[in-house]
């Protein structure tokens, strides 16, 4: 069967367009609307699209001012450039709890040939430290679209990471299962659990298939919401499987692996392995090359499971 391929940033663009009927929704751009896909909204709703030029710090706080006056701003740029406005996000958005929704596209090493300066591998970690901020990293265009549309009801700020390049679509026909804060089980098994997000969910599913041929059955979870973490689900699979691998196209420090291990260490410690970028920067390369170079692709995830089972 041919798997449909799509980029999560397109899901974001489609969601904004569908949200356009809501007169309170405004879109903020920093000269990357063509890339983040807010351009579709701009075309339909130019009056409610605000160009901030190449000025991310200003963009975030313009969003704060709009939110404080009852609007629902969606501001996007590359994930890496959102980081320039981190203190604005911290002091101007998270602290007063203003519902500004930031989307960082082109996240992770998967963004590829632009090289290390464009590959944000710390965004999930830094935004996760901020009180009031919901952190999302969906794995396909369908879930990105649905999660983005759910943000208008959140009444608090958020950060969503999307990716530049296409990846397998996993949620066609499963739209009803997507809800902010709820992890989704994509495969069931008792030997170990792989908790993944973003681009590595499909890699985790491939790893699970490979392991199954060896008689190893693993649970695979799409943890699209990094914060608030679906702690009940993490606890369930920790009890059921006893061994956990996390997988993310992000630094092993502070992201999904950090969130899961922080929770488990205090509640139900089990042997774990974190798949992620091992405290280094990326470099130029195609998406698949990056995942292999940095040890993030399916074979590495499968090997991590084997090692855990043999330890």
């Amino acid at each position: 069967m041919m798997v449909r391929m799509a980029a999560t940033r397109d899901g974001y663009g489609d969601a904004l367009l569908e949200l356009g009927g809501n007169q309170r929704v405004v879109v903020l751009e920093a000269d990357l609307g063509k890339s983040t896909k807010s351009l579709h909204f701009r075309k339909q709703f130019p009056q409610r699209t605000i160009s901030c030029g190449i000025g991310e710090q200003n963009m975030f706080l313009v969003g704060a001012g709009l939110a404080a006056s009852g609007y629902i701003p969606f501001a996007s740029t590359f994930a890496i450039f959102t980081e320039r406005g981190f203190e604005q996000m911290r002091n101007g958005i998270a602290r007063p709890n203003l519902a500004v929704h930031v989307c960082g596209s082109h996240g992770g090493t998967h963004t590829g040939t632009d090289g290390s300066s464009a590959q944000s591998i710390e965004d999930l970690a830094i935004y996760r430290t901020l009180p009031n901020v919901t952190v999302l990293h969906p794995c396909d265009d369908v879930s990105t679209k649905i999660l983005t549309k759910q943000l208008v009801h959140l009444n608090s700020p958020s950060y969503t990471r999307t990716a530049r390049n296409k990846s397998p679509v996993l949620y066609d026909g499963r739209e009803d299962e997507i809800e902010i804060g709820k992890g989704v089980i994509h495969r069931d098994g008792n030997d170990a659990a792989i908790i993944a997000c973003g681009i590595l969910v499909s890699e985790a599913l491939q790893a699970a298939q490979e392991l199954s041929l060896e008689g190893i059955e693993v649970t695979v979870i799409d943890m699209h919401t990094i914060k608030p973490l679906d702690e009940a689900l993490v606890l369930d699979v920790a009890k059921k499987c006893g061994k956990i691998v996390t997988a993310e196209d992000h630094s092993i420090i502070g992201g999904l692996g950090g969130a899961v291990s922080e929770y488990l260490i205090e509640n139900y410690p089990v042997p774990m392995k974190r798949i992620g970028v091992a405290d280094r920067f990326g470099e130029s390369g195609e998406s698949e090359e990056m995942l292999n170079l940095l040890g993030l692709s399916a074979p590495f995830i499968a090997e991590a499971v084997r090692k855990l089972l043999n330890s």
Partner: protein
Amino acid sequence: MSSIAELEEVARKCRVRIVDMVYNAQAGHPGGSLSEIDILVALYGTTLRVDPKNPSWEDRDRFILSKGHASPGMYAILAEHGFIQEHDLTSYRVLGGKCQGHVDAKWCPGVDFSAGSLGMGLSFGMGSALAARLDGSQRQAYVMLGDGEIQEGSVWEAAMAAVHHELGNLNVILDCNGIQNDDFCDEQMRMFDIPKKWEAFGWNVKIIDGHNMSEILEGLEFLKNSNQKPNILIARTVKGKGVSYMENNPSFHGAAPNDEQYALAMKELGVA
């Protein structure tokens, strides 16, 4: 409309409140509060469309104190207009108090912008002005910036963007007291011709004496012009104005008076 003499008397009372707050807390920022207070008194007394009984009235004008450390000045005028009570002023920098160290909308009625980190208020004000336009409202956004503060690069991102978006309903008052945390601005980072910089960015610019009440009122009238450029009043002020030993003294950017100094301040401000 209050007379100039009445406004000057309100300003004197506010100066007493400022010194009281900082003395009681034995911490805080008297210098920049005393330099801005004449302008705040005129703004709240004659121009700002706000309702103390309904501080979150949606169609109110917005006032954004971007130099949020100068909070005693803002608390003093909020108390004058009944947003908070006189006794709330004793909560300045006290756990659980309305009067947080830096103005904070979560804690204090009448505060529109949670400040504390410099260079953020103009962008927030721009968002407020855009929202007013989208709402089809005539309400105005007023932003008080400090002169040291405009060394932050993001201020100029906002200065550029506000002109691009033709936000004639965005008004800045720049409190040019010439002193920042460590020293005189001219020692820390010379800014040369400040009015020329704003003019070059495309703003309507007017220079006033920020302690001369009739000039301040003229300046506030100037802000009401109806063209599509944002407006800035560049107010020449004296840091610590009204308390002799604080005036133009970098030590009183962020320091409290001792007992003896407090007594002298009270005497100078006409408190028996």
